[in-house]
């Protein structure tokens, strides 16, 4: 799907058809906030001064052309950024008001609470479908007496239960790409994260699978905070409550505009945002 022939009015009508989620119910925590986040790879400054709040129980889409730092930003949110040896950062990322980069913070606990779904489906090849879903429990050493119920509820929430309930013992590689990606979503749900980060989760999928995953996202947003990176404008309009537009003009990526999704697509405040969402460039 390309964005070039989509008129702004059709996107804004899609976006405004959603009812805005009300942020901040106590059950879901206080959400995720970033304060002046910068990122570097070696000497290269790739992300500059991002201050953005993700209220609990909302879906936020990060959009922008390739290389604008959205994925890097996403990876600073659960401390995956530091996996790259040359990486450095500055600023604060607050989960329930506490900086996840503060000294003494246990990074594995952070990643347990802030889950991630990757661009390419990556089910563990040595495990069956069922083992894949429950793998997080083993890896994080969480005890759960009722794994059958958990298995069913995770796969149901990921929209995959009906397709795989009779073949839980098969290997994950036997599934189609879209099913594999939903398996990965189910896997990340099993450890009950507060926040789910999704890095272009549908970019390798056909429209049918994409539709199923978007349904899943809408469903999940009731119980968790979701941040999704996407190149697909319609997807951003369909699934998100808030949208942030990132752009790099050769220098580090910056956040040009962040607002409720309907206003980003109907009345963007910045000329460059308007150009991008209407497909005039990028």
């Amino acid at each position, binding site marked *: 799907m390309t964005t070039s022939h989509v008129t702004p009015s059709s996107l804004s009508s899609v976006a405004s058809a959603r009812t805005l989620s009300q942020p901040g119910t106590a059950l879901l925590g206080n959400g995720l906030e970033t304060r*002046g986040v910068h990122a*570097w790879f070696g000497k290269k400054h790739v992300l500059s001064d991002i201050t953005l709040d993700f209220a609990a129980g909302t879906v936020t889409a990060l959009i922008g052309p390739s290389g604008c730092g959205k994925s890097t930003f996403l990876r600073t949110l659960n401390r995956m950024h530091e996996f790259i040896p040359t990486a450095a950062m500055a600023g604060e990322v607050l989960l329930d008001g506490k900086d996840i980069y503060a000294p003494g913070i246990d990074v594995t606990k952070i990643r347990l609470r802030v889950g991630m779904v990757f661009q390419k489906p990556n089910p563990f090849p040595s495990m069956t479908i069922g083992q894949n879903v429950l793998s997080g429990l083993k890896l994080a050493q969480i005890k759960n007496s009722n794994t059958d119920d958990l298995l069913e509820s995770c796969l149901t929430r990921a929209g995959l239960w009906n397709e795989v309930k009779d073949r839980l013992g098969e290997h994950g590689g036997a599934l189609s790409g879209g099913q594999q990606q939903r398996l990965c979503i189910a896997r990340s749900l099993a450890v009950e994260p507060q926040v789910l980060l999704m890095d272009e989760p549908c970019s390798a999928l056909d429209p049918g699978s994409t539709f199923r995953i978007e349904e899943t996202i809408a469903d999940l947003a009731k119980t968790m905070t979701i941040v999704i990176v996407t190149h697909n404008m319609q997807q951003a309009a369909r699934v998100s409550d808030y949208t942030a537009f990132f752009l790099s003009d050769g220098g580090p990526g910056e956040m040009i505009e962040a607002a409720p999704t309907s206003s980003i697509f109907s009345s963007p405040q910045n000329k460059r945002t308007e150009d991008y969402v209407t497909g005039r460039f990028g």
Partner: protein
Amino acid sequence: MNKVIPAPQKPWQPTFIDKLEDFSILVGSLGVAGAIVKFTGFNGKLGYFFAFFFTLLVANFAFHFLKRGMQAAKDSILQVLTAMAIFVTLIPIVSIVATVVSKGYKGLHWGLLTKDMALASVNDPIASGGLLHALVGTIIMVGGALIISFPIGVLTALYLTEINGKLARPIKFLVQAMSGVPSIVAGLFILSSLIYPVTKALSGLMGSLALTILMIPTIARTSEEMLRLIPNELREAGVALGGTQWRTVAGVVLPAAKSGLVTAIILGVARIIGETAPLLLVSGGGDSLNTNPTSGAMGSLPYYIWKAFLTGGTPEAFARAWGGMLVLLSFIFILFGLARYLSGRKVG
């Protein structure tokens, strides 16, 4: 824009306090280990090592348990175990290098690389004679073996990975079995199949051929593993551009595997450069410089070391042997360092 850009930080790296804590645990464990050796039945280097090892394990576990809980404590056990494994691996390496250097430097002198042993005996004063003939012999025979076995090894690997024909499985099995052939057997094979019936004379070339038999399996197996790491998408992309299989392999697959192939060469050379037994059988062991691989006995560094140890008996002979080892070791280090440097450089 006059925005203030903060300094890049790496908040995930251990702080000074963390390092200080780790260091105190290390020093503390050393102290406790010392006390254990002093006041209990433990003694000697081994006792000290085990006392230190277990103290460190327990201290680290307790510290991380108190600081961050059970999971972190279990993690710390693995960290101590890996650190200890590295330590244990380094002991023999460091010990060998240190011994060779400390004993070998006495055997060094200015003529070492310019003279041969044609007119000197191993028991003569160090300054007479040298190991030029041995170094040249090693270079010629190992180089010759490399020139023959690299193409054969890589082509075998290409057959196994790219062509993958019906014979792939039996060949893979044979190559694997061949890598276990004792080196003396390779020497005897050349002796009985080429020297006795055909050439009826020892030569450097025969030495190269014996070494080739030992080298091919190593190069073929390593290259095969390296070629298997190249993703199939690259092959498909090459073929989809209209490349023939040969052009795709030569232009895309092999360049992508370049550093792996250098590893194959290094492992292959490492397999044969210290071989003594097969060379004794098929290239004899000359004491004078011989640069013609097709005729006459040819010396080699391992042979030079062997002869000085076995036929000498004087301090001079032992110094010669250790000096030969130092030269062989330095030669290997320089060679492998060069290979890594050349393969690590970005091409164009």
